[in-house]
């Protein structure tokens, strides 16, 4: 009975959101510009919900609470890196948009193709983004399963439920494109806001009297949890600083963010968004508080189970309809960003790999059809990947993803500040960065507490600068 109530609410909300988004579209997209970048017509508000919609995922919902629960202060990096990402975006995105608008670019790799004139580089970047996105979608599916398993109260096949929900969202993107995702984000953002205010303020107040009293109790029971370990310790201060910088720089490097950037109506829309988006980070503060409250109320979770932390509290102490609403918010937080990610991955593969690389589907209609088919393919791939899922927490998977995707940032920034950068030097930089990341992650070598992605970024920039020297310069002087 409990499961029935909760499941009905989730199903109702997901179906309602999809219908709302479909009805909000004036017409279905019919060409790649409309489908992938919304016809470059989004104003400040729609872009705000779209960006917030794809950045604040089920990771926001479960992973951040899980890290607060499991580690404490290291989770605060999430609050910091997004904000740094927005500041960098204030300068970078309008510049990228200007090029994209003039040259009618469709995807992130198109930008590299346009600036560096190398098809091979653009294809390589497209493949890298594609490879990084599939696990990222998988991450959302794991998050969704965590939610659906809890609201099943042990009696429902969560794998089947996840598959049904995901197929629904794949078909939705197939039909509606980026504008559909933006409208679905409106519902998602409102519901998530409600859920985190409940979880981060109402729960601590009901159990401890006030959020401040909750921190008092937390400091008594876990005195070292609310500050970072010093220096080079695992998840210590060095890790914190390098992780914030690395993930902040990589913040906008995935194809979905590029599509969102291109969809802006003007440069100033992007600047206003960079200015306003940090306010959305307040949601993260509430999520941390939910995680801390869960630690005091329901201690004893370990490993990947920490991602369930505050949902278990809701399940145990609140009626099924509350559980249903919170779970619905979480489900949308997994599904709506997935729709943007699927679209981003399908876009880079159709345009840069199939179109530019192999000469397939280069007409407008052909490209449109290829993108739609690829949405289905990427969806199927993600489901397959998810079926062989490993036991990592959501944040750990997210950090792995950032390690790779951030390596694209130096090449993109160099396009504006380093005129002598070439396709070769950008490619060499990316290769060096990835090599360092793969080595450090695979060997698990402790590297003075420095985040592997940050070390990769340093190598990347060094190689980029080194190889960007014009070869004849020493002879000329």
């Amino acid at each position, binding site marked *: 009975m409990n499961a029935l109530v909760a499941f009905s609410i989730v199903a109702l909300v997901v179906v309602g959101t999809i219908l709302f988004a479909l009805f909000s579209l004036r017409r279905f997209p019919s060409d790649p510009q409309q489908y992938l970048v919304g016809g470059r017509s989004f104003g400040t508000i729609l872009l705000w919900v779209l960006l917030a919609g794809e950045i604040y995922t089920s990771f926001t919902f479960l992973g951040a609470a899980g890290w607060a629960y499991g580690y404490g202060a290291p989770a605060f990096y999430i609050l910091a890196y997004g904000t740094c990402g927005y500041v960098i975006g*204030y300068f970078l995105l309008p510049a990228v948009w200007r090029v994209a608008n003039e040259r009618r670019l469709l995807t992130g790799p198109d930008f590299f193709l346009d600036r560096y004139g190398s098809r091979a580089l653009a294809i390589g970047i497209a493949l890298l983004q594609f490879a990084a996105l599939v696990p990222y979608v998988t991450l959302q599916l794991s998050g969704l399963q965590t939610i659906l398993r809890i609201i099943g109260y042990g009696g429902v096949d969560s794998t089947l439920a996840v598959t049904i929900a995901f197929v629904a969202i794949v078909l939705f993107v197939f039909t509606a494109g980026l504008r559909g995702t933006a409208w679905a984000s409106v519902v998602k953002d409102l519901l998530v806001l409600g859920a985190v205010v409940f979880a981060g303020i109402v729960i601590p107040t009901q159990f401890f009297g006030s959020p401040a009293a909750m921190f008092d109790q937390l400091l008594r029971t876990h005195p070292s949890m609310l*500050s*970072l370990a010093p220096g080079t310790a695992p998840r210590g201060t060095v890790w914190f600083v390098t992780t914030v910088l690395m993930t902040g720089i990589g913040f906008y490097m995935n194809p979905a963010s590029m599509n969102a950037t291109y969809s802006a109506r003007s440069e100033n829309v992007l600047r206003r968004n960079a200015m306003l988006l*940090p306010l959305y980070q307040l949601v993260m503060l509430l999520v941390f508080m939910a995680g801390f409250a869960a630690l005091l109320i329901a201690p004893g979770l370990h490993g990947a189970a920490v991602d369930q932390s505050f949902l278990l509290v809701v399940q145990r102490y609140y009626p099924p309809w509350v559980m249903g609403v919170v779970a619905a918010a979480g489900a949308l937080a997994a599904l709506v960003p997935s729709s943007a990610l699927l679209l981003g991955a399908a876009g880079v593969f159709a345009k840069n790999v199939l179109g530019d690389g192999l000469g397939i589907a280069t007409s407008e209609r052909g490209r449109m059809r290829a993108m739609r088919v690829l949405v289905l393919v990427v969806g199927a791939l993600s489901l397959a990947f998810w079926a062989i899922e490993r036991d990592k927490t959501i944040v750990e998977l997210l950090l792995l993803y950032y390690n790779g995707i951030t390596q694209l940032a130096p090449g993109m920034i160099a396009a504006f500040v380093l005129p002598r950068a070439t396709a070769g030097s950008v490619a060499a930089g990316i290769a060096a960065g990835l090599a360092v990341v793969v080595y450090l992650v695979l060997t698990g070598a402790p590297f003075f507490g420095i985040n592997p992605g940050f070390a990769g970024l340093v190598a990347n920039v060094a190689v980029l600068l080194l190889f960007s020297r014009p070869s004849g310069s020493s002879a000329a002087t």
Partner: protein
Amino acid sequence: MRSWRVAVAAIPVCALSVAVPFVNRVEPRVLGLPFLLFWILLWVLLTPPCLWLVGRLERRW
């Protein structure tokens, strides 16, 4: 002019990254929050005014 606006934008970034080891403490508590969390929250909230100021310096609005 250009260096000014980059400097203004760099303030929150530095406060949220390289400054963190220096504010890595629980006391004093502010608004019930441990100091580190309060510091990070403070700079998250100050980022919009900083970027607004950058926009003014650039004469964007």
